[in-house]
């Protein structure tokens, strides 16, 4: 291959083709011997319900292809772009309209749907502190067909979700003639975009730029269901078809650039500008970043059984000592997600350490993602490793499996939160509690020094699945997860998408076993790679692979917002001595213990002992009664464990349906304690403290221990307070 741009493109194309050839066997490896590993037909995405044929050798349908040329004016903070969109109708219905997202109009003014929802969710990216120069817009100045037909006269804005006429994030144009199934239409657009001071990780800070959601992006045509082109909402992000992006960015010479895809060429165009051309196939979005401060570090991910991936890390100089931590976490994600679900299908991944206070941290985009760390950030506390693995993981759950995030954000966020926690656990083990200090008066500046507390470990269940946030948020009592994400109460949407999904996947892992859940998720990944799966697709795959009817579970956690809480209501263990009347030797009722069998001596004593509750070896028998209650509305099968003072353990399964259940054991040992769900399978149980009960409560020592330790804090605080007096 030559070194010319065309040669490099061909080289990349061939490598992609090669990857396509190795992908199915690798995915089959991830399935670990599943009977019927799903196969991918020649270049098509099997899960996509489309009629459009994919270009030969493509991983995706490639029906939304962009060729863009963009120039940045750093003084005016404006992007000027021309783009050619080539869109192919892959549905079996014609359409005479084209719908576009103009996301940056979400920050056009305070009446946009994004800003209204941002206020409603109780935390604002910018609060009321938005200056005139901070707002953004995306203005389409021209839109015409390749033959020159002007579509501008037909342009109008729509607000399909809330009817907000002030919202300009969805633009529609009418075509002179419908695009038939399988037919392609090319549209040329000329547009201008004012870059915001960061909203939703997008914008500028000084000479740092993170540019996402930035160009007029075609919506998803769903045939008879019409266009799926939602407005820009505060709690939702992406949904787009896959395609090829060929993007040329003309930027000031001093800027170091990272973007979706591979850099094809960087050539000076005069006036202090360099044109950077990036190309990427089979992605559904394109994002880029630029800053003069980036320090570039390159590495390769290479492990047996998975394709090699080039890693390009763009670090802030402040964080250079943490570069290895970013690289290690990225590789951990590529390896574990790759082995569990299927390989990362692209040649390169670009890892971005965003500028301080840029607001761009912790976000995923195709083949590029942002992390986020602090200058003083000791290892072991879960950051930046956690965010790096999470965003790298989104390359799989969001990048490759392109669910509709606007309607079902949990399908990628939840699956990815679960997978992040698992990867963190197998890579780093439990995380340590972290606290931030050096918080000056005024409350404007947060803790600048992070301190790790090694004595306090946070398990995967608590930290990874964010159990504490789950139970302390409005999530458990808010919307059902089946409510489309963009319609969910903004304050609870994140809890549902991230935490609740991770919690119930974690529960499924403990219930079904990882050996069942892993191939199920791998099958889902493979079957819906480069497609747009719906929730039922995921549920169907889980049921198919597990061979279990999981509908009752999904019904409770997804279609309804049932809460789970099993509790040990009471325990008692008493001698199994019979009191009252019993049957005497002559068949007549006699008071228990007073009857006589006519025997005398030791023989009579043995019989009396037996009647009064003793085992064969003459040990007294105790009757143990354990009452378990279902306090929540949710139903889940649980075990009840009874542990006796002779060390024996009795485990009794319970379907968990009734509101309460009595468990009785008679044996020559006293009960020490009982636990419902002893293995904590049901991680969704909101109160695990009430799941166990000792016959003799023993919390006194713990109370003394921890209150005496805590008292030292109060004493020290009081002494500190005297400073002021």
């Amino acid at each position, binding site marked *: 291959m030559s070194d010319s741009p065309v040669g490099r493109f061909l080289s990349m194309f061939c490598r992609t083709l090669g990857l396509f050839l190795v992908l199915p066997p690798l995915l089959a490896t991830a399935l670990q011997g599943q009977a019927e590993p799903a196969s991918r037909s020649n270049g098509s995405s099997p899960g996509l319900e489309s009629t459009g044929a994919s270009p030969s050798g493509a991983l995706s349908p490639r029906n939304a292809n962009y060729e863009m040329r963009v120039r940045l004016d750093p003084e005016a903070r404006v992007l000027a772009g021309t783009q050619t969109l080539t869109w192919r109708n892959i549905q079996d219905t014609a359409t005479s309209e084209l719908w576009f997202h103009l996301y940056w109009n979400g920050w056009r003014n305070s009446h946009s749907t994004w800003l209204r929802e941002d206020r409603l969710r109780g935390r604002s990216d910018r609060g009321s502190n938005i200056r005139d120069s901070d707002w953004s817009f995306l203005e389409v100045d021209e839109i015409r067909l390749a033959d020159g037909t002007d579509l501008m006269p037909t342009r109008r804005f729509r607000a399909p979700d809330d009817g907000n006429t002030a919202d300009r994030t969805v633009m529609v144009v009418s075509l002179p003639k419908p695009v038939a199934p399988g037919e392609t239409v090319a549209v040329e657009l000329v547009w201008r975009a004012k870059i915001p001071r960061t909203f939703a990780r997008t914008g500028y800070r000084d000479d740092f730029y993170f540019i996402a959601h930035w160009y007029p992006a075609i919506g998803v045509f769903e045939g008879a269901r019409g266009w799926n082109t939602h407005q820009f909402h505060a709690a939702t992000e992406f949904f787009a078809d896959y395609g090829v992006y060929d993007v040329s960015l003309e930027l000031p010479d001093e800027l170091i650039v990272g973007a979706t895809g591979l850099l094809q060429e960087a050539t000076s165009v005069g006036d202090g500008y360099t044109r950077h051309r990036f190309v990427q196939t089979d992605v559904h979005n394109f994002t880029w970043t630029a800053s003069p401060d980036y320090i570039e570090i390159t590495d390769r991910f290479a492990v047996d059984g998975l394709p090699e991936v080039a890693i390009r890390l763009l670090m802030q100089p402040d964080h250079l000592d943490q570069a290895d931590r970013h690289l290690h976490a990225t590789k951990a994600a590529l390896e574990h997600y790759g082995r569990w679900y299927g390989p990362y299908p692209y040649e390169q991944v670009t890892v971005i350490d965003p500028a301080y206070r840029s607001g761009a941290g912790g976000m995923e985009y195709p083949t590029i993602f942002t992390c986020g760390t602090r200058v003083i950030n000791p290892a072991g506390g879960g950051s930046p490793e956690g965010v790096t693995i999470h965003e790298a993981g989104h390359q799989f759950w969001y990048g490759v499996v392109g669910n509709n995030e606007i309607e079902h954000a949990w399908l990628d966020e939840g699956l990815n939160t679960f997978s992040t926690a698992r990867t963190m656990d197998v890579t780093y083990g439990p995380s340590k509690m972290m606290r931030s200090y050096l918080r000056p008066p005024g409350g404007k500046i947060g803790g600048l020094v992070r301190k790790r507390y090694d004595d306090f470990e946070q398990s995967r269940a608590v930290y990874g699945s964010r159990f504490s946030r789950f139970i302390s948020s409005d999530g458990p009592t808010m919307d059902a997860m089946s409510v489309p994400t963009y319609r969910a109460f903004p304050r609870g949407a994140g809890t549902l998408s991230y935490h609740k999904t991770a919690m119930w996947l974690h529960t499924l892992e403990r219930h079904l076993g990882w050996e069942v859940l892993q191939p199920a998720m791998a099958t889902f990944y493979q079957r819906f790679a480069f497609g747009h799966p719906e929730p039922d697709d995921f549920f169907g795959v889980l049921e198919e692979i597990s061979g279990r009817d999981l509908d009752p579970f999904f019904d409770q956690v997804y279609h309804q917002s049932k809460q789970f809480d099993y509790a040990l209501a009471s325990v008692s263990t008493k001698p199994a001595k019979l009191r009252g009347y019993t049957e005497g030797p002559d068949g007549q009722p006699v008071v228990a213990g007073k009857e006589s069998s006519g025997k005398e001596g030791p023989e009579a004593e043995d019989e009396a002992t037996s009647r009064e509750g003793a085992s064969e070896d003459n040990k007294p028998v105790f009757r143990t009664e354990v009452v378990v209650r279902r306090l929540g509305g949710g139903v889940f099968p649980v075990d009840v464990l009874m542990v006796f003072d002779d060390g024996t353990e009795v485990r009794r399964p319970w379907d968990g349906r009734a509101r309460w259940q009595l468990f009785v054991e008679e044996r020559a040992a006293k009960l020490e304690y009982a636990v419902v769900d002893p293995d904590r399978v049901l991680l969704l149980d909101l109160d695990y403290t009430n799941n166990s009960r000792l016959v003799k409560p023993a919390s006194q020592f*713990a109370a003394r221990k921890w209150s005496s330790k805590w008292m030292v804090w109060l004493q020290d605080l009081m002494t500190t307070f005297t400073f002021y007096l």
Partner: protein
Amino acid sequence: MLSPIFRGLRRAADPKLLVLLWLANTLVALPGALAIGEAIRNDVGASRFHKTLDEGFDMEWMAEYSHRNGTGFPALFAPQRTGAGAVYENLDAWFGGRLLSENRALAGVLIAFGLVWILLQGGVVARLVGPPRAAFSLRGFFADAGGYFVRFLVLGLMSAFVYWVLYRLGGWAFGLVDASFQDAGTERELIHRVLFLGTAFVILLHATRMVFDYAKIATVVEGTRLAPVAVWQGMRFVANRPARTLSVYFAVALMSLAFLWLYTLVAPGPGQSGAASLLFAFVLSQLFVAGRLFLRLALLGAQAEVYQDAGGL
């Protein structure tokens, strides 16, 4: 410089005085500790979580405890407030001026102890400026304490007002720093600036402390009746002898910092699972509390020596 410090340390090494202060501190803290103990006991109840809490700590239980005890006094319990964490948490709260703002019940306890401390200070200062090795009597101590209570209370209110102003100014200044980093600058630069401004801020806080310490000493030694006059006397004393007053203060402050650092190294972790080890940990941590009180006495004692060495005003 060292002579008044050593003499101050010797004066502070008064077991009866120290026990009195420790007792006052402990007795005021005890109801809070009992309330937290009760909250933990009730929350753990008959559950098996007692086992992990006996042997170490359990963050799963903590997540549930925090959820169930999100308000009131029980909400003050947190694992980072035990062991060495207590030092970090309190230093951070002191620097940020957040001691009274976190929780109303806690503010009540602190104000209650503040009043007790103001009462005791009269006796403490009188003893520190009195003849060395004088016999300690509770009656005499409390007679002095009562005698100076109103004047020290007014001094305490004045110092609280000055600190309030300083923290407001500090908040404003740090707010300006924050604003200057909204659109440019790195975190490292911000840390440097916060450290620079923070150092100046802490020096101001300590300078204020020093002036009010000498105001109390002047009140006792000179018999000054009006608090503003005593503050003026304190300021004048410091202004006339900056090297001596600052060096003594700085030396004791350094000793205090070293002491705090040492405690963070030996502070008991969560590992005590038996009564004996728990008792040992408790004694060790109470020695730390006593040590802090001793250093507070030592500072006052050294300053009293400086004042008397100088022959007063």
